[in-house]
């Protein structure tokens, strides 16, 4: 039953083709869900994992229909499906919340980022953000700005809406060893503060220094 | 037909279907319903719960639901009526009847499909039912004879030979005998084992029983005893069985390492005082409102009150302590209360003041004994509601009562206890006024009294459970109030009470209870009311599942009673 699923370019970048069992994909999804809920900034979109999970759910639903009625297994399977559906919906809902809050800035970044960098927004999320910013713009214009003198009329949304606070403190657990992570930049009264992250340790620090580590799974937020 | 193996023939068949559960409105039925709900929850069975007050509502609900449901469970209703006749269900609908009303309807018992009766397997239960042949002849041989008689009456006359004459005479004799057997079988109506007990045994056979379900079974049996539906001997035999289950589930915590957690239900057995709600009331109030003590002391006379004070003094309990709420009495008095009462009970003519009873404790609050639960749930079931919200009132009472049974510490249970106190006070005051102004008349074969509209709390009397409790309380007190000679005669007289049922359409409710001396609780009024109604053509309705309670138009009351007197003397 747990056939191997090829999940390309999901996490570590050395082998692009990676064979994971359904359980491992679920594990990755739950990891992504936790990181998304705890990180102040929008993470890379794990849309491929979400697709695979939704396929798994449909497949399992089909199996359940075929099984004969009243079997204990059915209700247990259904219980597990509900749990997975909760994780997927909570993950996507959490991302939408962040997009709603930081839409203008995210769009700005999308425009200015280089092509090889993976995009943070999935196509649907990108369309949603675009539409949202468009609506906010028209709303401002139609309700207030068009009554104002000409030179005050243009307003750069991405400058005035709040931006994610990368200096937000987060708890994290280390999965892969990492030396010399700069925690505090050089300032006059105290020297640069570096720290080594050993496997299994739990730390509390600002998000900014470890943002990349969380993205590539070396470290996970708790 | 009789279900031999309830687990496979009933539960496993119902498990994967949608089930309609119809519940009569009495405490035993509610307890059975709670256990069944717990079992259904274990296997995710889809079910719908419908409370039914009387036969017409049973029919109405059945009509409404008969398309979607193929399996219908009847709790404490439908056992003593011919279901096939009054419901005339389609072929594929099957009924599972768990009912303590006796006598069981013969058609229900003998028909092969559709009706499945769940009964306890003790001999005298099954023996009481007349065997098949004495009631039904195998129709093939007789059938064509009787048909032929009507159709070819003329051509038959010349064949008067010996054989048909002999057969006809023998059939007539058989029919006489059949009528007689049926008459004896249906003469008395009484109660069999509690429905809650039956459902609990089903749970036990499927090893899914737990303490909560045992507590519901205990409450079901206690309801039967407290409302005088079964005699003391039947109650004691049920108690023995329950004790077996209780010690299995509540092993005394000898080995202290697996003491049960404090907030799970612990059930214990003891010889408790037969005083109504005394743990939730003051001792004095409870003495005045409990049936045995109130009638023994004749609390409605001030001489009786004096004797009650003497009784308390004899026990060495200061009056202030007795007037306080039980929980605030001094602990040493509370602990040896039972022994104190028992010693001085003999002197004051109090017989069997103690009875076997169970009580449950959950967490640190007070113990709740089975009879408290019965009083509370009964009171909730019959809480008065304003006239216009008739249906809503009934349902909300049903839901409240079920809710109060959900946990031993359910807050609804406390409200029920308060309501029960009000009802007991209403009973005591009406009993004292009835006896003081001598309203109980002897109509020859039975005693009779009537509740007038003008009386305080007359609305309570329209409710079956309350009326039944009141009638027993009244009969007991009345017999005690007579002098020696009259008492012997009155002991063997049953009592009939009528009370206003529905003031708007002018109907009264009539209840008949067996005499005091008759321990078997067999009630002959079911049949007597039927015959009296036929004879006088009075507009009666035998709606209630308990045949000894009927309602009829006010105008027909007097002629109905005269007919009743002639029938019964």
């Amino acid at each position, binding site marked *: 039953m747990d056939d191997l699923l090829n999940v390309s370019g999901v996490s570590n970048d050395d082998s692009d083709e990676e064979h994971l069992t359904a359980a491992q994909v679920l594990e990755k999804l739950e990891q992504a869900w936790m990181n998304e809920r705890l990180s102040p900034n929008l993470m890379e979109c794990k849309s491929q994992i979400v697709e695979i999970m939704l396929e798994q759910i449909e497949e*399992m639903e089909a199996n359940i229909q075929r099984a004969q009625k009243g079997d204990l297994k059915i209700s247990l399977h259904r*219980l597990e499906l509900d749990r997975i559906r909760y994780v997927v919906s909570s993950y996507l809902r959490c991302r939408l919340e962040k997009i709603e809050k930081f839409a203008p800035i995210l769009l700005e970044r999308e425009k200015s980022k280089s092509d090889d960098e993976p995009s943070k927004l999935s196509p649907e999320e990108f369309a949603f953000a675009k539409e949202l910013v468009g609506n906010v713009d028209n709303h401002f214009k139609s309700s207030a700005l068009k009554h104002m003198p000409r030179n005050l009329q243009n307003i750069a949304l991405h400058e005035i809406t709040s931006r994610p606070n990368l200096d937000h403190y987060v708890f994290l657990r280390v999965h892969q060893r990492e030396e010399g992570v700069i*925690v505090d930049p050089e300032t*006059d009264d105290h020297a640069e503060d570096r720290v080594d992250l050993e496997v299994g340790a739990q730390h509390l620090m600002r998000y900014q220094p470890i943002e990349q580590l969380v993205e590539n799974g070396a470290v996970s937020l708790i | 037909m009789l279900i031999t193996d309830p687990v496979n023939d009933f539960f496993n068949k119902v498990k994967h279907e949608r089930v309609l559960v119809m519940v009569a409105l009495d405490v035993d039925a509610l307890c059975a319903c709670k256990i069944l709900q717990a079992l259904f929850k*274990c296997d995710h069975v889809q079910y719908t719960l419908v409370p039914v007050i009387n036969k017409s509502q049973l029919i109405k609900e059945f009509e409404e639901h008969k398309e979607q449901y193929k399996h219908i469970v009847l709790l404490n209703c439908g056992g003593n009526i011919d279901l096939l006749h009054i419901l005339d269900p389609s072929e594929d609908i099957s009924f599972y009847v768990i009912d303590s009303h006796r006598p069981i309807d013969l058609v229900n018992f003998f028909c092969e499909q559709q009706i499945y009766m769940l009964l306890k397997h003790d001999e005298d239960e099954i023996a009481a039912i007349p065997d098949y042949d004495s009631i039904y002849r195998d129709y093939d041989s007789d059938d064509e004879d009787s048909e032929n008689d009507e159709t070819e009456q003329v051509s038959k006359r010349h064949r008067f030979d010996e054989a048909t004459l002999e057969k006809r005479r023998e059939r007539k004799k058989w029919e006489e005998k059949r009528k007689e057997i049926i008459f004896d079988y249906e003469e008395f109506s009484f109660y069999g084992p509690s429905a809650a007990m039956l459902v609990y045994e089903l749970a036990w056979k499927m090893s899914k029983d737990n303490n909560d379900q045992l507590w519901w079974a205990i409450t079901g049996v206690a309801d039967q005893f407290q409302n005088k539906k079964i005699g003391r001997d039947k109650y004691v035999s049920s108690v023995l069985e329950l004790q077996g289950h209780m010690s299995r589930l509540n092993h005394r915590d000898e080995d202290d390492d697996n003491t049960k957690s404090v907030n799970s239900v612990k059930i214990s057995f003891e010889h408790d005082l037969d005083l109504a709600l005394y743990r939730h009331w003051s001792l004095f109030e409870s003495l005045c409102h409990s049936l045995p003590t109130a009638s023994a002391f004749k609390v409605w006379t001030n001489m009786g009150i004096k004797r009650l004070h003497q009784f308390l003094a004899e026990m060495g309990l200061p009056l202030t302590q007795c007037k306080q709420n039980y929980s605030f009495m001094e602990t040493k008095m509370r602990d040896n209360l039972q022994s104190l009462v028992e010693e001085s009970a003999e002197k004051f003519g109090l017989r069997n003041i103690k009875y076997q009873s169970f009580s449950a404790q959950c967490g640190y609050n007070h113990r709740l004994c089975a009879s408290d639960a019965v009083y509370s749930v009964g009171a909730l079931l019959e809480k008065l509601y304003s006239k216009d919200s008739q249906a809503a009132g009934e349902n909300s009472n049903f839901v409240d009562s079920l809710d109060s049974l959900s946990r031993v510490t359910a807050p609804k249970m406390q409200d029920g206890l308060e309501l029960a106190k009000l009802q007991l006070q209403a009973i005591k005051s009406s009993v004292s006024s009835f006896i003081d102004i001598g309203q109980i008349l002897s109509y020859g074969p039975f005693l009779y009294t009537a509740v007038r509209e003008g009386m305080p709390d007359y609305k309570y009397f329209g409710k079956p459970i309350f009326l039944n409790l009141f009638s027993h309380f009244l009969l007991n007190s009345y017999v005690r109030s007579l002098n020696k000679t009259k008492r012997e005669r009155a002991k063997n007289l049953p009592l009939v009470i009528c009370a206003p049922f529905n003031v708007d359409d002018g109907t009264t409710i009539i209840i008949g209870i067996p005499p005091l001396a008759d321990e078997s609780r067999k009630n002959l009024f079911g049949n007597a009311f039927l015959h009296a109604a036929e004879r006088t053509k009075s507009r009666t309705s035998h709606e209630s599942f308990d045949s000894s309670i009927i309602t009829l138009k006010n105008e027909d009351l007097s002629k109905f009673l005269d007919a009743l007197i002639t029938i019964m003397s």
Partner: protein
Amino acid sequence: MEPGDVEFIAEKELVKIVPNFALGKIYFISGDVGPFSPGLPVDVPLWLAIAIKQRQKCRVHPPEWLDVDKIETMKDDEIASEFFTELPNPHFCEVAQLLLTHATDNIPNADLLRTLIKDIWDIRAAKLRSNIDKFVKLQAGHARLDNLSQMEINTIRPFLTASLDHMYQLRISQSYTERNMSTQ
């Protein structure tokens, strides 16, 4: 993150149950479980154990660390040591709470355990607060807290992170002012 979510994650922990029914292997998406045979203990995720227990089809075998003596020694160690002691399970509090509510009858002296666990929770909470205060006073940029359980982190997270963020902003303003002053 609500405590309910933390409990949701904690329900993936494995626990031993003794079923009273027979059933073959179940191929869940999150991994295979079973086969179940009456009387033979089998390891299942906690959420599955509770589902089966509620249907009275199994008895839960408490984890070996959920035992009065072990928890008592843990409590003493906690009092003795100035740092956080190692917890037997990262979801220590949630697993205990779930088992004590859903399988009370399968766990000996459930109430004593409940009070002991609550004591341990309070001791650690006090210790956590004093550490935080020291941490803030040191104006340190980061801290290492290895033996903190998931529920403890979740309960203190909103307050602690918000305070540290605010502290960081104040420090940044101060260093910004210092840089300005020195350049003038």
